[in-house]
């Protein structure tokens, strides 16, 4: 299955992936309209320590702890992609605590939100990958 991988050697810490992510999931057709004067809640985040930066998002694990721990059936695996059904989420945040990557976060409505590889929005392919200026974020099959 194709997944998002990040090569921190080429990550510039420019944070553009976060903004392209927020825009892709905003349901707006214009980036300015989507992001102007808004505190973004991207599903990919830049982690930074001692000058090393890297983007972190859901790994879409083969045996995900989040899905295993979900008590309401809101998280499910569909052809390898881990999806969230916000209508089913009860906001227990078990997944938030169990994700080893910190890739799941509560959204403003008290339910959780996560990367779905832009499969469910109008773009259809990961926009963080497309927006990365240095090819640090790639979307590929790695066995």
């Amino acid at each position, binding site marked *: 299955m194709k997944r998002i991988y990040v090569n921190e050697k*080429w990550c510039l*810490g420019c*944070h553009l992936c*976060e*903004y392209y992510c927020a825009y892709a999931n905003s349901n707006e057709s214009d980036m300015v309209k989507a*992001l102007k004067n808004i505190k973004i809640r991207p599903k990919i985040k830049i982690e930074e320590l001692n000058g090393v930066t890297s983007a972190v998002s859901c790994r879409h694990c083969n045996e995900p702890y989040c899905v295993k721990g979900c008590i309401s059936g809101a998280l499910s695996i569909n052809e390898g992609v881990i999806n969230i059904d916000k209508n089913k989420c009860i906001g227990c945040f078990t997944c938030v605590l169990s994700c080893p990557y910190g890739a799941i976060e509560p959204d403003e409505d008290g339910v959780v939100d996560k990367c779905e590889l832009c499969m469910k929005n109008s773009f259809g392919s990961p926009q963080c990958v497309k927006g990365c*200026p240095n*090819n640090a974020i790639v979307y590929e099959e790695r066995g």
Partner: protein
Amino acid sequence: MAINFLYPKFEVIRNQDRCISCRVCERQCANEVHYYNEESKVMLSDESKCVCCHRCVSLCPTKALKIVKTDHTFRPHSSWNSEVIEDIYRQAETGGVLLSSMGNPKEYPVYFDKMLINASQVTNPSIDPLREPMETRVSLGKKNIDIERDENGKIVDNLPPQIKLEVPIMFSAMSYGSISYNAHESLARAAKELGIVYNTGEGGLHEDFYQYGKHTIVQVASGRFGVHKEYLNAGCAVEIKMGQGAKPGIGGHLPGEKVGEDISKTRMIPKGSDAISPAPHHDIYSIEDLRQLVFSLKEATNYTKPVIVKISAVHNVAAIASGIARSGADIIAIDGFRGGTGAAPTRIRDNVGIPIELALASVDERLRAEGIRNNVSLVVGGSIRSSADIVKAIALGADAVYIATSALMALGCHLCRNCQSGLCNWGIATQREDLVRRLNPNLGYKRVVNLINAWTHEIKEMMGGMGINSIESLKGNRLMLRGVGLNEKELEILGIKHAGE
């Protein structure tokens, strides 16, 4: 505080309606132009630091930024123009020599733009390069005119060592130090893929790049940095750098702060020490001395590599080239006065040397007249900007061209001409680790390959139009050129007719 006489050259125009305060401009500007004001929640700019490199403009996701030249003015004066005035203020403040980078930006005539290329009509057929084979391959080096035969009458292969190129384009010398590791890797990989060569410049060869040896020209310059036996034998040719078009007659200086661990090892000098290349080679004061170095290098490489002598185009270039052609060198490279540099004194860059078109024409003419044109191949560089420039240079008599500025532009260079600051936002002319990282060779080399492939297509189209199917038939074929708006003397030196003749 002293009075600041200088008004910023550029204005950063931010469309606040479009700015989403993502701060990518702030994070990507090594000159620290942009900053975020927490209180008013807007991005602001300190324009005095802007060098107009467009990194912020290119990365801004909402196209909220543009850079414009300031229209702030001094009282207009055609001789004391604002550049002249500002330079005086700058020198009055610092007491120093003005430094600049990249090529001469002054408005001297560009002779390439005053020459037009021929095409076939009716009486001779043009060739469609998409349907018929087109030969762009060249080999550079001395060509023997005499045919030798052995006792059985078989022809003896007496061809001296050559550089083989799929297209008559080479990347000119840029040292590891003046440009980054990633820039070098991009050029080396592109050269390998294209079947052409790049040049180490005077910075030695990084151990990681020995694998590209067949596509590498190793340079020996006046500082002799990084020169040893393995280095000389690593490449496909050895180049002796006598001069550089951007700064004829002077040496080079890589400041100590750029000499980090890797560069110190590659150049074989202590970490943090200034790498100073003297103006002359201290062992070369005549053609005879040059001949000694040429043959020392041939000895060291067991006569398996052609030796290039690179000079800048200066007033007596034809006579100098004649001497070089007799010195045992296999290839002469001439760098015109518009050639680039990582740092040069501004006055020298802008006022010394001559246009490459005139130098090339007069050198080719002189070598032919003296019957020694086959002793050497001619390579020219110094602002070759397009495939049309290449076709014109070859028609004037060049065997191949050197390009560098355009190759760097393929890597992202925006000609902001601040290489000497070491703060290249595009990761090219810098050694700062976080900036070097911005040039990903996996992307960079492909862009360089694209550029050369595009030019190759265009060269073939132009050759086809002239009814020529081999680049060798174009070489020195000055009848394929006509001048426009040139005077008698210029036409005479270029050896071409005026349009309409």
